[in-house]
């Protein structure tokens, strides 16, 4: 692949993750606002002790979603700043990060919709899948981080 193609691919990845990250952050910040509103209006379906599992699951969905959004933004910026980072596995890393951002908070959210007493609903089974995808992406990124050259040597 020519250098120009690499540069375009870098820009594509950076744009994709920056866009995904910011939109995702908007989505999960909105979820946070909705959860705060449920607190504000004392909605029993969210606040009753019997719905403690739902509250925990949706809080986790909000927290994980928001945090993963920022990981996307960081990844997008990293690709811009250090294009050599993770070049070879970038498609896999990108796919894993996006997958984790959907499946991990989504699993928490679905787990909170229906619950079995103190156990979340079966939707929570998506969570370990998302967690595995996130761990793969982070492992690959961490390994590649060592390949980043100092700014003056590029």
């Amino acid at each position, binding site marked *: 692949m020519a250098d120009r193609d690499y540069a375009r691919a870098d820009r594509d990845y950076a744009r994709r993750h920056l866009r995904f990250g910011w939109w995702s952050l908007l989505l999960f910040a909105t979820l946070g606002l909705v959860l705060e509103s449920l607190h504000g209006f004392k909605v029993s379906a969210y606040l*009753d*002790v*019997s719905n*403690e*599992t739902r509250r925990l699951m949706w809080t986790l969905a909000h927290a994980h979603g928001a945090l993963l959004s920022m990981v996307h933004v960081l990844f997008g910026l990293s690709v811009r700043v250090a294009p050599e980072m993770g070049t070879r596995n970038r498609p896999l890393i990108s796919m894993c990060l996006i997958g984790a951002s959907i499946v991990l908070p989504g699993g928490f959210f679905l787990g909170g919709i229906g619950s*079995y*007493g*103190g*156990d979340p609903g*079966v939707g929570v*089974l998506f969570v370990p899948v998302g967690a595995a995808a996130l761990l793969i992406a982070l492992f690959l990124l961490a390994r590649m981080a060592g390949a980043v050259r100092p700014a003056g040597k590029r």
Partner: protein
Amino acid sequence: MRSVICAGLLCFSAILGWSIVETREPYVPEARITYRPIQVQQDGYVSSDTCKACHPAQYDAWHASFHRTMTQVAVTPDTVRADFNGVRVTDVPGNPIALQRRGREFWAEFGDPDWDHQGSERPRIMRQIVMITGSHYQQVYWYRTDRTRVLGQLPATYLVAERRWIPRDAALLHPPVEMPASETGRWNAICVNCHATDGKRKFDAPDNVATAGTSAIVADTQVAEFGIACEACHGPAAEHVRRNRNPMTRYWQYLTGEADRSAIVQPARLKPALSSQVCGQCHGVWEHFDQSAERQANVSGLPYRPGDDLATTRLVVQPAKSQSSPTLRAILDAYPGYLNDSFWSDGMIRVSGREYNGLIDSPCFARATVEERTLSCFSCHTMHKTAADPRPTGEWAETHQVTPGMEGNGACLTCHAPIGTNLTAHTKHQPESSGSNCYNCHMPYTTYGLLRALRSHQISSPTVAASVSTGRPNACNACHLDKTLAWTQAQLETWYATPRVALSAEEETVAASLLWLLKGDAGQRALAAWSMGWTPARQASGTEWMAVPLSMLLNDPYDAVRQIAYRSLRSLPGFEGFQYDFLAPGRTRIADTMRALEASRRLPGPASRRRDPALLLDGSGAPRMDAIVRLGLQRNDRPVVLRE
């Protein structure tokens, strides 16, 4: 500059950390507590904290219930209902009791109930409150004696609704005593059985607790949990927890509907007899079979576990059926009045908190042949508020945890549906009348406890014969307070062909309530006085004649009777502001009685007075004091002790 900032941050962190440590409740591991009974997880018990992780809704309902607060060792401003801030309580044993707060702790100074009568006067002691029993109607406070885990009982009880302290003995119905006996060690010996889960008394000398003298009592009392917690009804849960620790196991059960019921008891799924025994382990009159069983229980706790046959683990006292029991014979040999303290003479339970005895002698239970139509505690009560119940959890707990739809006739009509199609044909009252409420006729207020009358849980039909033979108010006269037994007998004969019995001249001519109130024993007087404050009875009987008889009870020898009579009197029109202290000295009480009688002469006006000889009123509507006093002089003064 940087070092200054670092030093500042360090100082700030140190101050913050110190303040957090100082303001936090100091945590003392339960095992290191030496001065009160402790919670120990053994015998397969895991505590409600473990149950909460998987069953939050059930935990929430239980947490709101009064079962949880039967005993509390968290003595905090949230759990203590009385004011301890420098309060001085007088007119109680140990007089005065000086209450005080010391930071987070609650303390009391009072005359030592365990005084050995050495020296000229009772020494005063200062003790820390370390345990509370009750939270609904009354609170009893227990102090550390620092003699192993033995607790002493503060000699005054706090009435929650009235917000007042009364002598501990005044909270119970029993003959007046000069100086009550020490109650030191009572929680360890008695309360532990039903105010805690899997309690073990662990006295070093279990056979002579009552006679050894309080200073000699040594106990290492332990419980699985304070209060009546999950495992009191579901059994020890350790095996259930172990089997369901793996999430895959749990989700397999959720998705297939194959719940693991092998290692935990669900009382509501047991057969009616066994499910009711779960409640009956505490809500019943029972005794150890013999001294050997009591010794075993002293060490290992009571052997009953939910799902067991209760009758194989202890004697459930049923006067009509237990007469041949060697256990009961031995008890009656030692204390002939034993049955009278808890039962009417025909064997019906007469004290509160023993509803299981009423249930098992009810025809709906005893004569039931079909399991689905057998009455059990769970027919009307639920231990966990259901999602379909719109009431707030607190209201559900306050209303005796009655299942939605079971508050009224729905409870009986579940089985007796045909009666509901024409209610009046059966009840002979208008459908909306309180006389058409099944409970009022078949579960009248004939049990006593907590300074009030409570519904009998032995389903019965009203008869005058039972009233004549046992002295127990029948449902008709407990509502129609202005009617005679003769009137009731005539009505029952006409409506239901109930056989007549011979009545005395007084029973023929004087309202039954007045006979119970003036001539009855202390238990009857208490019930009659309470009925005069009961709204349906007031609506059926009118109130304009009640002040005089109630006034006569203001000088009753029993504290409990005076207290109940005053409550009813104070709720009469014209007596709302009447001041009276049921604990005042006798001379003051006599003066108060005269004052009340004087006030009752002015109320109501002559125009609205009743002129009913059955109510001992003359032709002008004035009370016939000679007849009232004459009946009062015939008062049944047999000593009555009701073991609620």
